[in-house]
């Protein structure tokens, strides 16, 4: 009786290990980049990959899609990216905030680097250089999204102008803040 119990237990352990090894040996999804140069098709490929176990590669896929869109720039690309991000949010691949940040960073005139809940004297001025550096980087992404992907020249021009205005206004405001301390 005791021997039978040991035998059953051993069989169970062997089976479990076997199952575990088998699962380890299964091939992970390749998570290749989209093959199509057509944005619509590329988005479908990416969507399929993302839901097929490649969710961790979201940022790379997003970048791939931007590169593909740069090859065929048009105003409607903005909508395609918006819809893709809304889909990603609905699928739970990214949060609402990440979806917004991604969209606005590339396709909106406003700078996400200018977010903050405290007043400029206390919050922005002590980190003015960092804020401006982040804005400069974001402007480069806007150049890609607005100008190279969406042909929204007017939008990009305004973003660039806004950056310069913020730089000037912050210089004056922060000087005034410092003088009042």
């Amino acid at each position: 009786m005791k021997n039978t119990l040991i035998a059953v237990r051993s069989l169970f352990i062997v089976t479990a290990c076997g199952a575990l090894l088998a699962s380890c040996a299964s091939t992970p999804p390749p998570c290749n980049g989209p093959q199509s140069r057509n944005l619509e098709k590329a988005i479908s490929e990416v969507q399929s990959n993302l839901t097929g176990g490649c969710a961790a590669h979201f940022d790379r896929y997003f970048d791939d899609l931007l590169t593909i869109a740069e090859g065929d720039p048009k105003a409607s690309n903005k909508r395609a990216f918006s819809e893709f991000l809304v889909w990603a949010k609905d699928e739970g691949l990214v949060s609402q905030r990440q979806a917004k940040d991604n969209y606005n960073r590339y396709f909106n005139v406003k700078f996400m680097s200018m977010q903050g809940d405290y007043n400029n004297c206390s919050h922005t001025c002590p980190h003015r250089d960092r804020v401006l550096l982040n804005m400069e980087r974001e402007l480069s992404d806007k150049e890609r999204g607005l100008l190279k992907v969406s042909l929204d020249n007017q939008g990009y021009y305004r973003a660039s102008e806004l950056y310069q205005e913020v730089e000037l206004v912050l210089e004056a405001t922060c000087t005034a803040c410092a003088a009042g301390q």
Partner: protein
Amino acid sequence: MNVTGFALVIRAPALLSLLLAASTYAQTEAPTIRLFPTTVVEDLRQTSSVAKEMETGLQEVIGVLDQQQQLYVESKCEGAEEDQGCQRLAKQLGATYLEMLGIMEERLPDMEHTVNNTRLSLEKRLRSELGKKMTPWMLQETLLGGNPRDVTAPSPTLRGRSGMRLSERFKQYYQLVASSNSQTDQSLAVLASDIYLDMEETSELIARTREEIARATLIEQLNQSFGAITPEMMDVVGGVKSILFGDEPSLVQIAGPPSASIEKAYRSPLEN
């Protein structure tokens, strides 16, 4: 004599006139940010008036300097400094130069006082309205305004515009203020910042310029004894002339956006 400093001193009235017009509009349209209350406007008006007086006085004396210099050159006095006639011309030129320095010395304290008043008033408004009452996001939204600005309209950013005839600069500023696109909160914020920074520099430079005038006056008084025209003197006169009368006409152009067809703006539900 610090010509750069003088350039900024001279640039102030043009900025001030622009602001006076802008603030008048601001009062009638009741903007959400109050950067130019009556006190600031009054300070600016006074600064503008003092600067204008200085400008007018200098314009006359520079005209005389011009004529004297021309006469000096036409009389082939360069290299003939020992000639008595040339020495007399050089002394006259030096006297006019001293007169120019005198006008500046006389006007600068008033200028310094009014510039400082304006700077301090603007400083207070900027700190309160943009520094303490706004988050960075609010500041950005103020600068953007409700509607995207017409990209063909001139930008209200004024810093660095020098070397232009003063009357032409006034005209440009007037046009800037008169155009509907510049009379909004966002351009007033830029304008206030622009003027404040300019006033800061001006204030500092007036102080330095006053020190320089004392030195230049002493040197020229010594030169009067020898009747020499120094290269420094010619440099100063040349610098002042270029500021008052402008350099060769140069078009200050603001780059337009690259041309391309822009389809109807798409608004994403993700947009902020």
